[in-house]
């Protein structure tokens, strides 16, 4: 397997009256969970459709596992679209078998794999039920199985958790992690920053058809940290000093106070602490890490 499962180089895609992707380049390393983020209408779906060969880029190139994307790669990709459905009248088993065979599995191999999944998800009794008899969450489970059944190298999940209750969401999350463990790469498109926080190793952010950010999640978070610290203390109210400014301060019910301190340029936690320790009793002191939510909002606003 090549180092990068997917390389997207300078892809441009125009639709009738707007540009959906404007010179977008992404590198998706093998074996990671890659968060593809962006506001609605940013061009994520267009990009995903290009990777799935549903549409072709106007210019630019896509490399799958080191080689230009070709028709055979369809069998190595599993795609769970955001807007998804199944044949309502068709039975669960038949339907999964059909979808698996369209992905190039033989009937026997598909049966084999299906049995495993039916046991794993404990849904053996669903085999002969028509899809319309299942709840929305149950249908989502079936769709997830359909996406990963053929053990694709690359799995693209567009909002995989929508419609799931917390129990099933956790179940799916564990499955995603297990798939990564087994060597699959997962592209994960979502608006839920908490799941990005939890799952993604890499992220890319697309806004208004352009790539805004790309890289390791931790690096990006570091890049976007606000350089603020939260201090919980007892004693006299702290005032701004040479090493920091006080952004806010509030009294707590137990008599302690909480302040948010902004470090001066080139100053870090230790510098702040040194100054504070002389004045008050420190109960806790913590560097504020940028949440993905902050990163998202900041990056989108900056690029606007």
């Amino acid at each position, binding site marked *: 397997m090549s180092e990068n499962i997917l390389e997207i180089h300078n892809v441009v895609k125009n639709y009738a009256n707007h540009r959906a992707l404007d010179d977008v380049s992404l590198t998706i390393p093998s074996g990671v969970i890659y968060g593809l983020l962006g506001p609605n209408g940013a061009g994520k779906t267009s990009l995903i*459709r290009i990777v799935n060969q549903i549409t072709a880029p106007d210019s630019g190139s896509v490399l799958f596992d080191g080689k230009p994307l070709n028709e055979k790669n369809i069998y190595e990709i599993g795609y769970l679209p955001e807007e998804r459905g199944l044949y309502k009248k068709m039975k669960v088993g038949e339907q999964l078998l059909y979808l698996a065979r369209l*992905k190039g599995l033989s009937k026997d191999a598909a049966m084999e794999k299906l049995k495993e999944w039916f046991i794993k998800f404990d849904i053996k009794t669903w085999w002969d039920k028509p899809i319309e008899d299942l709840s929305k969450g149950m249908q989502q489970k079936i*769709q997830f199985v359909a996406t990963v059944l053929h053990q694709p190298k690359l799995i693209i999940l567009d909002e995989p958790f929508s419609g799931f209750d917390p129990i099933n969401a956790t179940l799916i999350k564990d499955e995603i992690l297990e798939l990564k463990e087994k060597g699959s790469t997962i592209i994960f498109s979502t608006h839920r920053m908490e799941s990005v926080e939890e799952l993604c190793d890499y992220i890319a952010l697309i806004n208004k058809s352009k790539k805004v950010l790309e890289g390791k999640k931790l690096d990006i978070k570091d890049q976007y940290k606000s350089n603020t610290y939260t201090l919980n203390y007892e004693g006299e109210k702290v005032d701004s000093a040479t090493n920091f400014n006080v952004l806010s301060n509030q009294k707590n019910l137990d008599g302690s106070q909480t302040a948010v301190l902004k470090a001066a340029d080139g100053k870090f936690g230790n510098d702040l602490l040194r100054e504070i320790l002389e004045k008050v009793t420190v109960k806790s002191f913590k560097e504020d890490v940028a949440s993905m939510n902050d990163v998202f909002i900041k990056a989108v606003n900056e690029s606007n």
Partner: protein
Amino acid sequence: MNNILLIIQREYVTRVKKKSFIVMTILGPLLMGLMYAGVIWAAVSSVNQKKIEVLDESKLFEGKFKPSEEFLFVFKKEKIEDLKKSLKGSDFDALVHIPSDVLENPKSIKIYSEKGVTLELQSRVESALEREIENIKLTEAGITKSVLESAKMDVSSETISLKEGGEKKSSAAAASIIGGICAFLIYLSVFIYGAQVMRSITEEKTSRIVEILISSVKPFQLMIGKIIGVALVGLTQFGLWIVLSAGILTFGSKLVGEKLIQSKNAMTEAQMASLPPEAQEMAKEKMQAGGGIPSEMMPDFFGALDTLPLTTIIISFLFYFVGGYLLYSALFGAVGSAVDSDTDTQQFMLPITIPIIAAFMIAQFVIRDPNSNLAIWTSMIPFTSPIIMMVRIPFGVPIWQIVLSVVLLIGGFIFTTWLASRIYRVGILMYGKKVTWKELGKWIFYKS
């Protein structure tokens, strides 16, 4: 290719397994059989012989009214007043009074009846009298009976079509019936199966499974697989219909046929019993000569069938059914992909259905004149040829016309399939947009 086969298989199997398919396949011929039986039964049971008494004061017409399956005439000698009085309560349905001066005063004939006189009885009595009065007057004018006999001629023509390999008896009636049935079946199937393709594409789009499918297969494969799958369903249904109908018809006509013969025999016996002895003899002789039931009662339809180019008809029916269906179902499919729900299809349906309906209407004229310019032109144009050519083929069509029509139809459906696939690939991913004709036109030229 493998994927197309899988799609065809799914489309075919899910449809054939549906209850509605099974019900329609069984019920179709059964309904047809019932209809057929109903018509025959109605025809048989409506033959309710009426007894008519005739008072012939002119003494000219005795024995001249021939009994038929509808009417039986009995001549009476009583006075008109008595007969009128006794009509009520007797088993006679009507009384015909022919006065003695009927030759001079032909309008003086009167028909009495309790329930009102049917037009049929009136015209029958009138024509019988007219004929006799004519005979009498001609005889009076000096024309002998033998001249009269030889002047009466029964004209019925036999149509013969000239073909290489000799003359063949042909039957225009059989040809138009077969042509008409084939055309109607194609007309019907284009609508039924075309609409099925359309609805199923819209369903895939609205249920959003299409998003999942097109990550595995090309939109074109999905569309063509569906079209072929439904075509096979159509062929299966037709095949089963033909087999079942043939079964029901054979069984049914045997049953009905026996009943028909029985009732006829019963009737003729009753008729004969009421005839004077010498007339009975005559009628018997006539019946034996005619082989029981008068043969003109049953048109020799099946005999005429043999003279038609049956193999050509069957092969061309299959071709034009498939060709016409492919041509139109692609267009129906394009419409199905462009809309968000069945209810939105109306505006796009009309331009597609107009040529089919027009073809079906033109077919009525073509049956009467299968070699007119209109017939030749419309049997070439791919949008009308499946229906019109099927009407013409039983009458015999020059080979170059068939070849040209076939080539054009193949070209036609390749073109509509291409067109439809261009619209389809854009349409299935387009949601929540009221699509216009202009928009559809633009889609055709989109890059993929």
